[in-house]
Structure formats: C-alpha cells, structure tokens
C-alpha cells in the first residue's frame, strides 16, 4: 500500500483536464485525504499546452510531486512533453485517437470523448478519466460517485440526469482501466481529520483572509495571475462601509487606495509585476505621506510582460525598494496556500500599525493551486487599526520621530496636508536640511514596530542552514526532510516576514557559516539582500517558470555543502 498518488492530465486547452484534476482532488479531500492541485497554461484562451496535476496523500503535502504515478496524455504532444516525468512503472493513459501505435510501457489507450458520447453525456470526458485513474489506484469508486451527487445536486430538473451520466462515465472509465490489467500501488485508506477542513485556491483564501482581517476598500485592475482576487472582491466586498472598484490602470489603482487609506479605511489592491512597476511612484508617495495600504503582488515570470502564466520569485528587489529615493517597504511572503489567510491579515495589520505601504508578495504557483487547509477560527483573529487622532495633536500629523495618531478626514481640529514632498509636522512642504533628516529618520524608525514576525526553525545547531522564501518553502522542506533522514546536519528556517525580518532570526543566520536560499530567479535576489545584511547567504537558483522539485534541491544542497569549505560560491 502507498501513501501517495500523483496524476497529471495533459493536453490542449479546453479538453477538461483542469476540471478532472480538481474534481479528483475535491472528491479525495472529502473522504479525508490531503490533496494539492497545480495547473499551468499559457496566457490564452483556446488550445495550446495545458496541464493540471493532482496529488493525493495520507500525509501533509509539501509539493506537487516530482514524479508521476499516472500520466493522462490527451494528445501526442502532451505525451512527448510529459512522459519524462513518469516514474518507472508508472502508467500512461493516452488518447487513442491520437496514436496509431500505442506508446511503449504501461499504456492504456482511451478515447474519453467518444466514450463520453456513448454514455449519452458528451461533457463527461473528465469523469471517464477520473474513473480510470481511481481504478488504477484501487480507490473505491463511491468516493467519486458520492462527490458527484453532492456537487451536482443543484435543485435543477436535470440534476439526476447529469449525476447519472457522470457516474456512468466514472464506471466506464474504471472498467477500461481494470480491463487493461495495469495498476499502481493501491492508495492507503484516508484518515479523516477530526478538525474541520476546507479546500481552497490560494488567491481565494488570501482574499478571505483580507476580508476577515477587516478589509474595507479594494481597487484593482485585471492582470494574471492576480485577477481572481479582484473578481473575488467584486463578488464579496459589498457590505455597508465597504467598496470595490475596477480601475482604468494600476496607476489609478495605487492612487485610489492611497486616497482610500488617507480617508481612514483599511485598503488593498492586487496586481502582478507589470502593475507593481507602474505603482512604484505611488508606493513612494504612500511611504513619505504615511498612508496605510496593502499591495498584493502575485509574482509571474518577468521582466515586462514576461511569462504571464508561469511562476517566478523575481519581484523581491523591487518590492523592498520600489522606485526612487530612500525607502524600505515591508514585505510578507506566504509559503503555501495555508499561509495566505494569516499573511493577508498580518499585512493589513502591519500597514495600520506603522502607517505605511506593505507588500504581500505571493506567486502564481500558490495563487492558482488548490490545497486542503484547516478551517480557520475567525474568532481568534486579532485585527489592528491605526491609532487615530481625536484632534488632541491639532494639525501636527507628522510630529515626532516615530508614529503619531492618524487624523481621519472629517475629524474637527485635526486638518493637515498629507504630503508627497518633504514636509514639516503639519505637512507643509519644506526644504530645511534638518527637517529632511528628522522626517527620514521618523519614517524608518516606524519599521521597528514590525519586528513581531515569527519563524520556524529546526536543528538550529547546524552550521549550515536552508532558508527558502515564499512558495519554495514546500519543496525545500521536502528536500530538508530527506537530507535529515540521510543524516545530513542541516538547519531549517522559514519566515513569511521578509522585510523587516524577525531580529532573532537575523542573529541566528549571521552566526551560520552558510545559509542556502532556494529561490526562483536568476539574480539570487533574496540571498543578495541577506548578504547586504551581513549573512553569508547563497542561492540555489531556478528560472524555468516552474516550481522547484524536491530531488533537484537535495542534489544542489549536497553540492553546495561539499563546496562549502571556507571558500564562497557567488550566487
């Protein structure tokens, strides 16, 4: 019996592979498995290579899985592109329409569309696939037929018809698979968790976190892979005292949330790299005028239009230092779908607490994948609000070298000018050298209010550490587990709090001989920041547009630890 099943559905856009992968995941999650799905497709609508993958396991899932147990290839090109990822003894289900001679190895020919038509429900091709895969992993079919019942009972006259059609398709797929005689290691029984769980997509879970965190106003302009956040808000941020608007550009987005933040609301926008770059001047304005706001940057491949539908971690430098002039913008980077909910709450709290812009730096691979996570206890959430002026300070909004109460417009006796030029206490422009010194130090001093970030650590006595950031956490953790199991003496660190980092973590890292940073960019962006902070950090870099694989990281860490004998490797 095995703990794990990894299946990939690959083909052209519009062949239903994403619904198949997600359907499988949801059904498996309902009976108590841990699941994770991952999909990738080009920035387009029809056709072109699209693949979706589901991992089902009795253990917590850290990655999408390096190797496939089953590959469902819906056309020849897909077979060629993906066959290399199939593990020895893995099984291919191929679209018999596309192959005159069956491919080598354990291969099952199947014409899902034709079979679906036979079942009288041509739109059920994805359930044919699901049935076949379930059968190969010896999973009870009722996991899936029950799921179909629940999912398609929508109080419509033709519910029964659709349910029966889909379930018929599941059985047909299963029959074909068993007829082939092939099978993968049967999947262990699930152990239903005692706590309530939900199956969420990264961007949706992040959006819910923001709303649970007290978000009141959201503005955004569509851009992949951030659009789903804007869409979620348009559908859900509509209660009394809330507002959501689609803007004409990211420049208007940043201007609008600056206005909304100035007006006293808890505010957010979301974008991807190109939009973040357009916001740079505005982020500087929020920094110098001290306006609380959160910018979600869902990273994709860059620069410019770049790789809109691929994942990358290459916006870090411009997130910490967006635009001209002296600033250091707080950055929080969730490491998994589960992290997205608390990360959104924390980002809003940081913005309110230090009265300035915060960047919530996530990435395509987290944004678009589904993961099962524990149902959060929303009563346990601590929402912060900026301390507001009741007029006691008069118009001295920028008084002192650290935070001062925020005058909400409308408050009598506290009117001031929020100013993007250097300014005195009441916000009037000035060029006096000492004022620029004082106000600059005031702005940076507020970062000390954000040192409450937490971090995980393990085996901290080791002199070499691995420190992934963002979405590389899972693969790095999987690699770490394997290395530790092999007896490698390696320390583990992870924090969502990239800037400012938890001071205690900084101290620990400074004491290491080598800190290994797996990151999805060419420059080794995070490690260069860490070296600037006096840490001997060096990167494992990948810039393929795809997430790390566990095996790759294991090899790379081993190589770096070998090389690590005094002399340094430049990242």
């Amino acid at each position, binding site marked *: 019996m095995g703990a794990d099943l990894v299946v990939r559905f690959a083909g052209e856009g519009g062949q239903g592979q994403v619904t198949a992968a997600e359907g499988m995941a949801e059904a498996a999650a309902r009976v108590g498995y841990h699941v994770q799905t991952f999909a990738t497709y080009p920035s387009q609508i029809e056709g072109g290579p699209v693949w979706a993958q589901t991992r089902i396991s009795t253990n917590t899932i850290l990655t999408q899985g390096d190797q496939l147990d089953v590959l469902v290839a819906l056309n020849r090109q897909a077979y060629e592109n993906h066959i290399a990822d199939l593990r020895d003894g893995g099984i291919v289900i191929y679209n018999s329409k596309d192959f005159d001679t069956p491919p080598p190895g354990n291969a099952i020919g199947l014409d899902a569309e034709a079979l679906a038509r036979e079942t009288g429900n041509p739109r059920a091709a994805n359930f044919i696939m699901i049935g076949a895969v379930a059968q190969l992993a010896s999973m009870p079919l009722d996991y899936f037929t029950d799921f179909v019942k629940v999912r398609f009972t929508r109080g419509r006259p033709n519910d029964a018809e659709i349910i029966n059609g889909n379930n018929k398709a599941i059985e047909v797929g299963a029959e074909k698979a068993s007829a082939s005689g092939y099978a993968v290691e049967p999947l262990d029984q699930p152990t239903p968790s005692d706590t309530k769980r939900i199956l969420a997509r990264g961007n949706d879970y992040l959006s819910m976190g923001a709303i649970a965190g007290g978000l009141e106003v959201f503005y955004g302009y569509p851009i992949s892979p951030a659009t789903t956040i804007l869409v979620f808000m348009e559908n859900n941020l509509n209660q009394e005292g809330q507002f959501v608007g689609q803007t004409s550009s990211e420049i208007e987005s940043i201007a*609008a949330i600056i206005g909304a933040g100035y007006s006293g609301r808890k505010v957010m926008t979301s974008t991807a790299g190109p939009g973040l770059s357009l916001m740079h001047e505005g982020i500087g304005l929020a920094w110098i005028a001290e306006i609380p706001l959160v910018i979600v940057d869902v990273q994709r491949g860059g620069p410019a239009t770049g790789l809109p539908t691929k994942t990358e971690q290459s916006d870090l430098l411009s997130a910490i230092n967006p635009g001209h002039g002296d600033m250091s913008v707080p950055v929080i980077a969730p490491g998994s779908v589960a992290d997205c909910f608390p990360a959104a709450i924390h980002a809003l709290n940081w913005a309110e607490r230090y009265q300035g812009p915060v960047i919530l730096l996530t990435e395509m691979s987290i944004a678009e994948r589904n993961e099962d996570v524990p*149902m959060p206890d929303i009563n346990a959430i601590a929402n912060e609000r900026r301390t507001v002026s009741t007029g006691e300070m008069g118009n001295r909004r920028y008084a002192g070298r650290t935070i001062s109460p925020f005058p909400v417009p*409308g408050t009598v006796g506290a009117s001031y*000018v929020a100013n993007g030029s250097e300014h005195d206490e009441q916000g*009037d422009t000035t060029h006096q050298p000492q004022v620029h010194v004082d106000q600059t130090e005031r702005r940076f001093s507020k970062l000390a209010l954000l040192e409450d970030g937490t971090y995980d650590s393990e085996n901290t006595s080791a002199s070499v550490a691995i420190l992934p950031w963002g979405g590389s956490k899972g693969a790095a953790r999987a690699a770490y587990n394997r290395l530790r199991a092999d007896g490698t003496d390696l320390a583990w660190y992870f924090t969502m709090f990239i800037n400012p980092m938890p001071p205690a973590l900084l101290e620990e890292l400074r004491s290491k001989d080598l800190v290994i940073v797996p990151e999805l960019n060419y420059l080794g962006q995070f490690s260069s920041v860490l070296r600037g902070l006096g840490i001997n950090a060096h990167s494992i870099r990948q810039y393929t547009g795809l997430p790390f694989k566990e095996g790759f990281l294991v090899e790379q860490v081993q190589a770096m630890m070998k090389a690590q004998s005094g002399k340094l490797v430049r990242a």
Partner: protein
Amino acid sequence: MSKRNPEYDFKWCPGCGDFGVVRGIELALAERTMRTGEPIEKTALIAGIGCSGNLVHLQEGPQPYGFHGIHGRALGIAYGIKASRPDMNVITVGGDGDMLSIGAEHIGPQAKRNVDLTAVVMDNGIYGLTKGQASPTTLGGVVTSTTPYGKLEDAVRPLDLYLAHNVSFIACGVSSKPKELAGLIGQAMDHPGFAVVHVMSPCTTYNDTYEALKGNPAKGIEPLAHQVPDSHDASDWNAALALVKQPGVPVGIIYRNPNSVPLHQRFAEARERIKPRSRSVEQMLNALAI
C-alpha cells in the same frame, strides 16, 4: 499654510492668477460651511504638483484636510477618497500640465463613474513651476523654453474634451473674478456628480494672458473672455458644444446634466439589490468546507 506657517517657503509671483483661485475656493468653502453648517474638516482638497498645487498650503483661515501628492494623480486619489467616504466633500486643484497632460488619463474614468467631486483646473497655458515649458493648452506656434521655434502641436481644447467625456457639470471661470469663481465652485460642489471648473489663471512670469483675456480697447484687443449668455440652456449638451465651439472663453456654467446619478449612489443601489446574495466570511469559508 501661509498665515499659520509663515516659514512655508513657496510664494506665487506678484500678480499670479493663482491668488484669485485660492480666494475663490476660500469664499466658496466659507459660503458652504455657513449655509450647510458642515465643518470645513468635511472637505478634502487634493492638489496636483505645480505652482497651482501649492494652493493647498496657501489657504487663509479655516483649513480643510489637504493632500499634496504626486504629479497628475489628484483625480485618482480623490476617487479613492470619495468612493470610500461619500460623506466627504472632495475638491481637486491642479494645473493644465498636471490635469491635461500627465493626468489627462484620469478625467474620462471619473466622468464615466460620475464620481461626485469637484475638479478645479488652473489653466495658465504653461508649465509654471518648471519654469516655462509648453503645456497642452499652449497655443500652436507659441515660443516657450521647449518650443524655441514655435510649438508644433495643436493646442488641447479643454472644454470640448470635458464635454466629449460627458463630464456631468462643466463651468469656466477667470481668476481675476474670485467672487464669480466662488459661485461656480459652490454650484459644482452642490452638483451630485463629477464637476469640472476650468479657470483661466494667467502666469505673469511665463505666459501673461491678462490682456488677451480682458482685452485692451486702447490697443484694439478684443477680450477673449465673455459671459455665457443668460439664454444659454446649460442642460442642453448640444447647446453647450455650440457654445464652446465659438471663439473666445465662455465664462459661466456651460453644462449641467439634470439627471446626474453619482457613483456612490449607483453603488449603494447595487448593494441593496444584492443584499440577499452577500455573504459573511463564515459563509465564504463554509462554502469551501470538505
């Protein structure tokens, strides 16, 4: 701001039209607070960057809330304020470069949303603060520091543009008549929707157009500025277009949409329609329970 901040180190040149504009705004706000009893702190004045934008620091007397941001973005900031705080009275001030060049992109969207705010455009036909470069409203052929051989581009016609964007209230004033200007700004603030008050505010240092605007019989110069005739029906868009197509600068109310429904009202109505469908966070989470 000047009185309470004598240290403030920006001054307009003698005779600058902007003195008249700040006076007009002060008078309009005084009248409004008097009439409505609403404290002046319920007004937010959002300024662009330019000699014009410095107005936010140079108001005398009771002070509204202010924002002096970055070049060209006053309207975007104002939209953010008004949509999330419909209880605020929001005004923007900016120059012809700030509002019609780098910031021009923000006029159309506010007009289509009909955001209930008042945009005061201070038009001196030049980039003043940066010391005299051509602006969108600088006339073709005019020599400036960036058009040493005469401006090659045609001039933007702001009033025509506001009309084309269906701005729901359009007025035009001159800085030399602060009282009249105050009246126009007052009506613009009362108008439920996006209102633009375009003000001819000459730059005595780089583009002195006083004589051209007021005319000079001695030199036989006809005044460019002329009052909007009482006969003009401001609710008639076509009449408004005909008016602005005439030579010269029509002073007064040019267009006012009598059926203007502002964004915050549209949003509130939508909110009512969807009440049944709106969900608490618990409901959102439970919808994903497995």
